[in-house]
């Protein structure tokens, strides 16, 4: 329709972590402005870690994000370990895997059930669902609590995990604790099945929108990569080592955003559960593959709204892996291990696929173990350009919707990415001039 003016100035959209604005100005068929803006206050984390001792760095960077504090902690510790030539033990790695999976589960449940589900059920938040869909809410809370308790018991605290240290743990779980974690996740598989069924019943409400883009994630020869892996792009045949991450990320400043943007082989690329699924679907556990089939998700999927569905698939995966790792630790016995190592100068990169995508921490240390340079690239940084590109393609397709519905669809698009906006505005890039 010619002559219709559309003005959407959606400031600080709700049900996303951090502050983002959607701006759409259309005059008839003319698209004047389509913008995904980040006005979030930057916190300058690099000025916090530079000059600090190696033993403090991960405790500081953990505070970049409340939801993925565990992911930041591990990416940070992996970078420090790479810089100082430390190889962690199998026990340490398995415990980190459990904690990483627990965070994955906790974050995805929060996102799917508390942030996305209200849109699919036509309400403003999860609170009214306590009355209308009490069983579903209690199920979500049960899973969320299981994941958080697992984080508390392995990491000491679910937000900003205390026990996680460079090269080990300040305290180890007891045998009984691991048994309870394993058994709790076995029980949870039933709940996850119910959740998948419920999501499936609502899947038709997700917009049917496709835009092929580049998908970036970690990849691993033997399993669906989260804690460990090398970098894979759907556009490139060869894998890229984490230490060469800058070839992939290419950060730059955009005027619309206090967070930096990235690009690789196209103008934008996506990270996150859908990207991981597209890149590594075959390495999921059998149970998770079954859930994907049940939910009608197959690789490659180019509908960004399906990121939430991919997250449900990953929930099943994380639960199964938690059972596996707990059992391994029980079979092998928990041993006290010495965390000591020789401090030395060096540069190292740690890459972890956290709930929202691939996270890179890059540190350089001097001989005394003081951090002298730091750079971080956050998953959501890597999604901002893709969100922008998606919006530019989506808006013309939905411009005839009533204003409210158009606004909601755009919000749903942003929410689908599960953005962690305050993370992405940490802004870290300190190189000596």
């Amino acid at each position, binding site marked *: 329709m010619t002559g219709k003016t559309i003005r959407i100035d959606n400031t600080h959209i709700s049900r996303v972590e951090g502050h983002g604005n959607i701006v759409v100005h259309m005059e008839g068929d003319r698209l004047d402005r389509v913008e995904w803006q980040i006005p979030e206050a930057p916190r300058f984390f690099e000025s916090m870690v530079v000059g600090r001792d190696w033993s403090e760095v991960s405790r500081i960077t953990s505070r970049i994000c409340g939801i993925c504090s565990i992911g930041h902690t591990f990416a940070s510790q992996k970078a420090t370990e790479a810089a100082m030539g430390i190889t962690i033990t199998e026990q340490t790695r398995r415990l980190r895997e459990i904690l990483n999976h627990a965070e994955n589960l906790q974050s995805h449940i929060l996102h799917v059930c508390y942030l996305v589900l209200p849109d699919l059920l036509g309400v403003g938040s999860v609170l009214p669902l306590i009355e209308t869909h009490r069983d579903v809410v209690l199920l979500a809370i049960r899973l969320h609590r299981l994941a958080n308790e697992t984080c508390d018991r392995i990491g000491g605290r679910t937000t900003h995990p205390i026990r996680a240290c460079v090269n080990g743990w300040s305290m180890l779980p007891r045998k009984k604790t691991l048994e309870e974690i394993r058994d709790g996740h076995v029980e949870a598989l039933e709940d996850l099945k119910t959740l998948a069924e419920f999501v499936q019943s609502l899947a038709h409400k997700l917009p049917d929108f496709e835009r092929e883009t580049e998908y970036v994630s970690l990849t691993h020869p033997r399993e669906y990569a989260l804690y460990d892996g090398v970098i894979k792009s759907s556009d490139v045949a060869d894998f890229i080592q984490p230490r060469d991450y800058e070839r992939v990320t290419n950060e730059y400043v955009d005027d619309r955003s206090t967070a930096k943007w990235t690009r690789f082989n196209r103008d934008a690329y996506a990270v996150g559960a859908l990207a991981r699924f597209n890149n590594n679907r075959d390495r999921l556990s059998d149970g998770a593959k079954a859930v994907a089939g049940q939910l009608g998700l197959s690789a490659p999927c180019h509908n960004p709204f399906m990121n939430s569905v991919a997250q449900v698939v990953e929930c099943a995966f994380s639960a199964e892996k938690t059972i596996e790792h707990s059992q391994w630790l029980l079979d092998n016995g928990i041993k006290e291990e010495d965390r000591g190592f020789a401090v030395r100068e060096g540069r190292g990169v740690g890459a972890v696929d956290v709930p929202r995508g691939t996270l890179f921490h890059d540190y350089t240390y001097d001989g005394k173990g003081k951090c002298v340079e730091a750079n971080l690239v956050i998953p959501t940084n890597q999604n901002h350009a893709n969100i922008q590109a998606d919006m530019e393609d989506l808006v013309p397709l939905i411009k005839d919707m009533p204003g409210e519905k158009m606004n909601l669809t755009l919000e749903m698009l942003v929410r689908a990415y599960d953005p962690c906006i*305050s993370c992405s505005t940490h802004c870290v890039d300190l190189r000596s001039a």
Partner: protein
Amino acid sequence: MSTKPKVAFFDFASCEGCQLQIANLEEEIIGLVDLVDVVEFREVMTEKALRYDIAFIEGSITREKDEARLLDIRKRSGLLVALGACAATGGLNKLKNVRGNLQQVRRDVYGSDWDRPHLETYATRAVGEIVPVDFQIHGCPISRDEFLHVVEAFALGTNPEIPDYPVCAECKTKENVCLFHMGQTCLGPVVRAGCGAICPSNGVGCEGCRGIIPHANQNAMKDVLAEHNLTVEQITEKFNLFPLYLEVTP
């Protein structure tokens, strides 16, 4: 308050980990929304409101435009509560202040783009440095139990009470082995209890996220740390990880 208090949550420069603790109340969320009316909580709901009985603020103030938003919230709120270390004391966000030259900090981060208008920043301030705050909930992140205690107290119309004594008291009643006896150091003797000594209980020395107690014996703390072979540089760094004493350079 005879009707349910209207409660809202806002965030500034933060990691949102403190607001996450509300979601982490799990089943107690249901009890909480029976007690109070959550009328605005951007992270979790779309609805907004014009007036609030209690506004919880997470995060520090790092830009002029944030001040305006905070002042507006203060005007529309009965009680204003700082939620977490970033809001209560400035938290880790004040490490940026310690570094000194803010222009250099901005150059370091954004390079040649450092002075583009949307990338402004100033020395981090706690919420209480901009508007009057009715209560401080400390911690990085907050303790969920303490949060509920505060809400219950306000709902009953009384003042919440939190400890003014050091973390050591909680370590002792929990029968933790003192970290100083295990060759580590800990700021427990000068930091506010109320977290259940969670970090020492997990084998890591207190970092001071809940802020310094009134009349803390800072001199004795420095002496004790020096007796445990920390250099003055290390002692200073411990004290300014979370702002236990401030070195503010505008």
